[in-house]
């Protein structure tokens, strides 16, 4: 359990660091990826709704605390996103290797749209609709492109941090 928690904390901090340093320069048409959305979706796919919600809440809160904006919106968004993706995964039966990429694209776009709507309702969203749509779609595309790299890494990490079963005779 502790090993697993440490692994997730390391993943979240690494994602935050990469997003605020390297990916600040590596933008796709002016938009950077949303790595914490990507991490939440992939872990929800791998581990289910329970862990998806917990990772989403923790990573969202971590991002919120680094923003000079109202805190809690990203935590709310990623909690629901992690839970939703984890639940949806149980009902999607497809052997396609492209499935995680497609889910990451849809999940990221939907998550960002939800976050923008909540910010708008709180009166803190002052961006044009065209920019909001552009960010949602391009971030989703960027995350989808990164999925074939991130998904195997997180799967390996997730399996490595899982408690080993002991067979007793």
């Amino acid at each position, binding site marked *: 359990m502790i090993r697993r928690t440490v692994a997730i904390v390391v993943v979240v901090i690494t994602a*935050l*660091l990469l997003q605020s*340093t390297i990916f600040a*320069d590596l933008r796709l048409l002016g938009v950077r990826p949303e790595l914490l959305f990507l991490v939440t979706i992939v872990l929800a796919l791998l581990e289910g709704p329970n862990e998806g919600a917990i990772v989403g809440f923790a990573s969202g809160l971590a991002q*919120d605390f680094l923003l000079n904006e109202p*805190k809690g919106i990203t935590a709310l968004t990623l*909690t629901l996103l992690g839970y939703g993706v984890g639940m949806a*995964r149980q009902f999607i039966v497809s052997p396609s290797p492209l499935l995680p990429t497609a889910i990451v694209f849809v999940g990221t776009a939907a998550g960002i749209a939800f976050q923008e709507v909540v910010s708008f309702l709180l009166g803190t969203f002052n961006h044009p609709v065209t920019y909001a749509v552009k960010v949602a779609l391009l971030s989703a595309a960027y995350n989808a492109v990164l999925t074939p790299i991130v998904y195997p890494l997180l799967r390996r990490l997730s*399996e490595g941090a899982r408690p080993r079963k002991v067979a007793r005779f």
Partner: protein
Amino acid sequence: MAVGRPRPRSTRLLVVGLVSASLAIITLDYRQGADGPLAAVGAQAQAFMAPLQRAVTTVTEPIGDFFSGLANLPSLQDENERLKRELADSQTQAARNAELQSDYQAMLDLLELKGTLDPTGVPAVVIGSGVSNFDWSITIDAGANDGVDVDMPVVTGTTDAPRLVGIVVAANPSSSEVQLLIDRDYRVGGELSVSGETGIVIGQGDDDLRMDLISPGTEIDIETEPVQVFTTSYEVGEATGLYPPNILIGSVSRVFEGTNEIQTAVSVRPAVDFSALEFVLVLRRGSEAGGSEG
């Protein structure tokens, strides 16, 4: 994919708990703003991340320089592999040297600027940027321990042309958050170089800035000569603004003809290339002067 067998009831309870916690955090932060306990936790988180960002930036910068050096290699089809490698090494080294020379010059300019503009100013290195696509900010490696405080203006450039970068919005012990001029929540008073008319310059994200509230009927002709926008020191009562006057904000790139009957508006291209920003100077006078915005 290994999906564990769900226990719907406990999962639903967990999600309800986490959503409630998120809503409580939103409410608490909304009510208490920058003075609440959550803001203090945010400051701690930023202080924790700053050394890590500094380390990552230090490590990844030479790698970026290496790739940019390789990208600039000329075609060497007739050379053998050894010479190619040697040339690649030399080019990479030269690119690195040019980068170091450029950094050195930027720091010299900054020191000169500090001497003339604000001898007590705090030079700083950019170590990171904001984590959101909706937030235009940077993290610098100088904080409260260096004398940096909230609402201090941040500039870059030379003594001939100091250029406005933004304003400090959070000061942690060893790092600070700077809201960039292009952030959509940013506002600063500006003055046109030719007519002397004033207005409010507002950040527009990746697009050019917008300067509003210029007197209607003001003649702005950017075809005959460039029109630049500088900070202006407003005086409200006996207090002065946060920004020293005559810091370059940018150049007028477009005039919105006949905006309306009560104002004229223009687009302003920022003088700072925010994608290549490495060194900045935090001015301490703004805070000492106190007073009004812009």
